[in-house]
């Protein structure tokens, strides 16, 4: 494995590469089609470059462990607003997640509904393109429209357009207080209704999730203590109807609960996991559609119904397979995957995206892991890759 220690060495390694490269941070997020290539780790590019708490900005090398970033920020009572998940819980693996990996996957947690995604907090990047050139975009200020926004293009491009060497964020202060208002005994209809009602209120909900397995809807509030208490009371009244409503104000209990939602702990034991992004209204309808009746699976619903994690165990996938003449669990999962992506592509349902997040290599190699794009966008994507990586050496094939 190549492990450059500086940006210049990274650029040199890419420029000198004779064949495909498999770009790694901590290697904890093996999402996408398997890549054949020499491993190139960015973990050697580590450390905070600049941290200005008074300006709410952080510049950090891409290989810096996420834990270190979070520790440094916590020291000043600040944090990354977008609450990136730790994929190790879901995918296993023992690597050290890096901040560059977070950006490469645009990894965003429950607070996405209020504070935006990783890409919304990202204000600057440095990266090495497929030619080995070091390119800068954005900067370290919050408002910047100077030139094209390649910052956002790099977020979520999974190392296929360039290898991140440095990233800059705007930050948020850690609020004084947190509370979660929980509705118990909620089925799908009641859960979506509750989440929608909460999000339409002015009470600034910073997390809205439904755990169907437990029948619980969790609504998080953050801010100054008096304000949180006030809003919790209002939200509680807003949820009046079937099902008990409780309020949890303990810091530890809240941290544990939202970490579990963020990391999709409920599906950690499932062999196959998909991530579905749709409008909440469409998700509500989609979950009742054909798939729901013919397949057995488990789910965790986040983003007020806009994000659904679907998990299938080996047994559930094996059960799905024979209906379509498929032989085994992997074949069942392939069939399910295709059905799911077809449903997303159905304009009647309002559009959405299904991504296979967890599954054996055999499965990931057999299907388009990411939702296939419409023809004009797919052509633009090929065009971008040809421009930024003309030799086709950066994580080739990973995004399909």
């Amino acid at each position, binding site marked *: 494995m190549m492990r450059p220690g500086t940006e210049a060495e990274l650029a040199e390694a890419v420029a000198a590469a004779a064949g495909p490269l498999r770009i790694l941070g901590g290697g904890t997020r093996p999402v996408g089609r398997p890549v054949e290539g020499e491993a190139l780790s960015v973990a050697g590019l580590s450390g905070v470059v600049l941290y200005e708490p*008074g300006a709410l900005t952080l510049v950090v090398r891409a290989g810096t462990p996420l834990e270190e970033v979070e520790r440094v920020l916590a020291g000043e009572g600040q944090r990354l607003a977008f609450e990136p998940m730790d994929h190790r819980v879901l995918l296993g693996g023992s690597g050290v997640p890096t901040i560059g990996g977070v950006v490469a996957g645009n990894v965003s947690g429950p607070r996405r509904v209020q504070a935006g995604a990783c890409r919304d907090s990202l204000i600057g990047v440095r990266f090495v393109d497929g030619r080995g050139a070091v390119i*800068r*975009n954005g900067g370290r200020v919050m408002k910047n429209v100077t030139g094209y926004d390649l910052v956002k293009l790099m977020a*979520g491009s999974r190392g296929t357009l360039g290898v991140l060497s440095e990233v800059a964020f705007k930050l948020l202060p850690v609020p004084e207080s947190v509370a979660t208002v929980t509705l118990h005994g909620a089925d799908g209809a009641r859960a979506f209704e509750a989440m929608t009602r909460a999000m*339409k209120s002015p009470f600034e909900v910073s997390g809205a999730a439904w755990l169907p397995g437990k029948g619980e809807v969790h609504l998080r509030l953050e801010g100054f203590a008096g304000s949180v208490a006030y809003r919790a009371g209002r939200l509680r009244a807003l949820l009046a109807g079937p099902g008990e409503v409780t309020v949890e104000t303990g810091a530890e209990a809240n941290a544990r609960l939202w970490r579990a939602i963020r990391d999709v702990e409920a599906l950690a034991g499932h062999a196959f996991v998909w991530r579905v992004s749709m409008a909440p209204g469409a998700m509500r309808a989609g979950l009742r559609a054909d798939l729901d009746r013919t397949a057995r699976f488990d789910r965790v619903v986040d983003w007020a119904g806009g994000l659904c994690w679907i998990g299938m165990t080996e047994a559930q996938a094996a059960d799905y397979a024979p209906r379509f003449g498929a032989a085994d669990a992997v074949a069942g999962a392939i069939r399910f995957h295709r059905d799911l992506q077809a449903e997303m592509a159905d304009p009647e349902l*309002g559009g959405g995206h299904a991504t296979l997040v967890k599954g054996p290599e055999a499965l990931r190699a057999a299907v388009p892991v990411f939702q296939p794009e419409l023809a004009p966008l797919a052509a633009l994507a090929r065009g971008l890759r040809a*421009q930024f990586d003309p030799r086709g050496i950066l994580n080739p094939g990973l995004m399909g």
Partner: protein
Amino acid sequence: MDMPVPNAAVIAKKEHVVARLAEVLGEGAVIHDPAETRAYECDALAAYRCPPMAAVLPGSTAEVAAVLRICHEEGVPVVPRGSGTSLAGGAMPTADSVILGVARLNRVLEVDYDNRVIRVEAGRTNLSVTGAVEADGFFYAPDPSSQLACAIAGNIAMNSGGAHCLKYGVTTNNLLGVTLVTMDGTVVEIGGAYMDAGGYDWLGVICGSEGQLGVVTEATLRILPRPEGARPVLMGFDSSEVAGACVADIIKAGVLPVAIEFMDRPCIRATEAFAGAGYPDCEALLIVEVEGSPAEIDEQLGLIKQIARRHDPVELRESGSEAESAAIWKGRKSAFGAMGQLGDYMCLDGTIPVSALPHVLRRIGEMSAEFGLGVANVFHAGDGNMHPLILFDANTPGDLERCEAFGAAILKLCVEVGGCLTGEHGVGIEKRDLMGVQFDPVDLEAQMRVKDVFDPGWLLNPAKVFPLEASAGRRAG
């Protein structure tokens, strides 16, 4: 301001191109009489003018696609135009270009409160988006000061901000989907009412691309429930440094105001003379606004005042009513008009790290003396987005050039301290030739490669964003 030499071959076939456009749009939607095309000769950067060859006002995405297909076939440059309020010359025509105005595309297509989105045609004005949902308690957050007139299409092209983006973000953070027509007439649907698609962040790169990658005809925007209330506090300080330190302390304390606005003494004096808002006569003034229920507002303003007192304010005035809130905002909102009373001015838009505020303000003061031109500062302090207003007299020969040189010096200073040339207005033609100050050639090359993908012939919104010499090879090709 250098502009590329117009393509004589294109101008020579004006009649032919106009006839083709009229065939798909109807005569009424194609403007080609030189007396009428003058209406499109400039945007809000009125110092530079050039009538286009023609202007078209399509009424649907299909018509936009037809116009672009024709212009693509004929090799005619196209300049997209929203409401023409760009302060950067983003909609400045060239003599061989067709202006594609989206003003007729102004319908609300769908309001969906359950998903908290609105889908509109892109010619709709910013304020009328909020207008369509405010009766139901919702609003569209980005609020550029031209919001009464500016179009969503232009907001997307320039990634517009506003006074409240400290809390709610700018256009790119509130945009969920677009219908985009590329230069060859292909209609591309991107995003929708859902968040974070799996592929590349197309919305991210299109937003802020200054109309050079495609023409946005429809947009899905996030709408938010209106907060229960909002109230500002006004504070005056003896020096800009102290005001800057107070801003940093407020931010560090964990309060997230919706707006922190800053005005310096020249700006305070001008607005007092103009609007009589009752501002204190001091070196620096801050307006800090917070949102929530009455009790939440009290709690936040209490904390903010406590922080402000540590910095010995000469004035600390909390609004106690709607009327008092309006009075506090009155001066700030009339600042640009007030400066206009003093003469011609040029409004800059650089962003700096908040920590560099005192240094930059001091240097601007020194440069003001060096260039012999007055300057007033009014800006969004929470995010470091400055708006120095340089005063000059357009009728005095050499004054505009001196003003531009002063402006360039300020923007270079912004970059030097770790900031950027433009925080919310865009590059346009105005800052095009300064791009080399902020970016190395290789950085600009990477951006131009994105344009190569969307518009290989470089026909869309020519001569903007990139220095002419940097794009020369591509434009010729």
